């Protein structure tokens, strides 16, 4: 064996020795869950297509018999935001990771001061605020929790380190399943007194691409707001997606229902022109990105200058808060608008809703 071959074996052996000690069985469980969902989805799509075919045939075949014409059903191209108007299944969603959970788990009141006090599904992120109180649930051993958290969290005194990946039984008797969400820099932690429920929730994990129009990375600086003063919207809005960003990274995206879209449009139209100015203290204090919220509003505007309009929204004490259109038109960020956006697509957890100087 030549020297180079020997070095190759040494080098590869060293790299294999540094391989992660990951829970491969958990990886298998996620793989099985993902494939089963794909199969169910395919079956559902197939059944729907068959149903549509039957209906179309029932309507068109007699007509073509009578006219002798060949009928080709029209194919409608997907149209961005409007493709997702079906009601969304209740799920914990963060950075493309989706874990279906019962709707009650998503009640914000289920988590107080960072501590779950009822069955809960929530996100713990790098920019989380310092825990200001410690709620004590009566029977923590009875709680089921689903948590998506940043893979790397800052170390805080007095808090336990993040759990290792794998499946274990905790001291309080609950089953905990932990995995790294592939490709999303996240950890999924499912804990439940019912092992079967823990496994079921865990296996629900899937990754979804962002809706069309929501880039996974976005610049956090708005277009220059020096354009016209007659509003950021022209014409009707037929569909809308709200994308929320922290540090330029897509956190959550929400395809709006018709009602939500109408509410958002109304609030955008009534907002007066202009942008807020940063607070004076910002000249000397540098806030973390978590104190700013950025959204992109991707709107289908068939009567506008372009069929799709993307509005940039910035909020925070140290940014020029407001809505900016690509042509430079601006709108003030009213409290109604902020509250709607934080409900539709929550921003950073430490973002307080402070809009900035006016």
């Amino acid at each position: 064996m030549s020297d180079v071959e020997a070095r190759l074996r040494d080098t590869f052996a060293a790299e294999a020795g540094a391989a992660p000690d990951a829970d491969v069985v958990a990886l298998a469980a996620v793989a099985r869950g993902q494939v089963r969902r794909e199969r169910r989805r395919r079956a559902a799509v197939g059944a729907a297509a068959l149903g549509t075919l039957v209906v179309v045939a029932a309507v068109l075949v007699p007509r073509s018999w009578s006219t002798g014409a060949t009928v080709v059903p029209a194919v409608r191209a997907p149209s961005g935001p409007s493709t997702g108007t079906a009601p969304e299944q209740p799920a914990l969603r963060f950075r493309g990771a989706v874990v279906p959970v019962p709707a009650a788990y998503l009640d914000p009141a289920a988590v107080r001061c960072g501590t779950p006090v009822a069955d809960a599904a929530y996100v713990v992120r790098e920019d989380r605020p310092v825990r200001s109180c410690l709620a004590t649930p009566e029977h923590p051993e009875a709680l089921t929790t689903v948590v998506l958290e940043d893979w790397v969290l800052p170390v805080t005194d007095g808090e336990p380190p993040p759990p290792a990946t794998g499946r274990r039984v905790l001291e309080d008797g609950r089953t905990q399943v932990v995995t790294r969400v592939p490709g999303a820099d996240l950890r999924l932690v499912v804990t439940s007194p019912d092992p079967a429920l823990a496994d079921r929730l865990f296996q629900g994990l899937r990754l979804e691409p962002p809706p069309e129009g929501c880039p996974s990375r976005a610049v956090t600086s708005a277009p220059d707001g020096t354009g016209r003063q007659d509003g950021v919207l022209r014409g009707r809005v037929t569909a809308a997606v709200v994308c929320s960003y922290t540090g330029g990274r897509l956190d959550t995206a929400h395809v709006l229902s018709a009602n939500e879209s109408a509410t958002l449009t109304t609030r955008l139209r009534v907002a007066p022109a202009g942008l807020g100015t940063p607070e004076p203290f910002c000249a000397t204090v540098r806030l973390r990105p978590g104190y700013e919220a950025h959204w992109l509003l991707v709107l289908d505007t068939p009567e506008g200058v372009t069929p799709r309009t993307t509005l940039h929204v910035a909020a925070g004490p140290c940014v020029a808060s407001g809505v900016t259109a690509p042509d430079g038109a601006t709108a003030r960020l009213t409290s109604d608008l902020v509250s709607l956006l934080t409900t539709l697509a929550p921003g950073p957890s430490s973002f307080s809703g402070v809009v900035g100087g006016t």
Partner: protein
Amino acid sequence: MELEEYVAARGPALLRLAHVLCGDAHRAQDLVQTALVDAFRHWRRVQRADHPDAYVRRILVNAHLAAVRKRSSGEVPVGEVPEPDGAGPDGADPADGVAGRDGFRAALDGLPPRARTVLVLRYWSDLDDVAIADALGVSPVTVRATASRALATLRERAATPATTTTTGEAP
């Protein structure tokens, strides 16, 4: 044999192979995950295969090469920066050993992905050229030619003084 049974038995070896192929812990897990999803999609075929390991390995290798092709930025994120062990052979200056090893690894990383994969399969997985050809979907002749070129490149680069591989250093 169920997926979980297979993974319990062979998963750690797959993870090590993935790590040697891509050199990053997180990416290795992603790679194994991708390979398992693909394997489970065709699980009956895997079960019926004469060599299920070879089948899954082929999926893993192809997933790796596809991921390399897709990653156009060339950015290589690493979870941790490895600490040099500092042990120099035969009392030599440890820095020389580290520099040599790093130079060799840099030369290895500089190979085209397919060539590096051939070397991993040959010198880490101990596969013969026919098995490597099967994993990569090429002919054994192509494997031999690729390996031969890769080894020649490594010999050439290993023979080059270390100073030429480091840039921005004061002499």
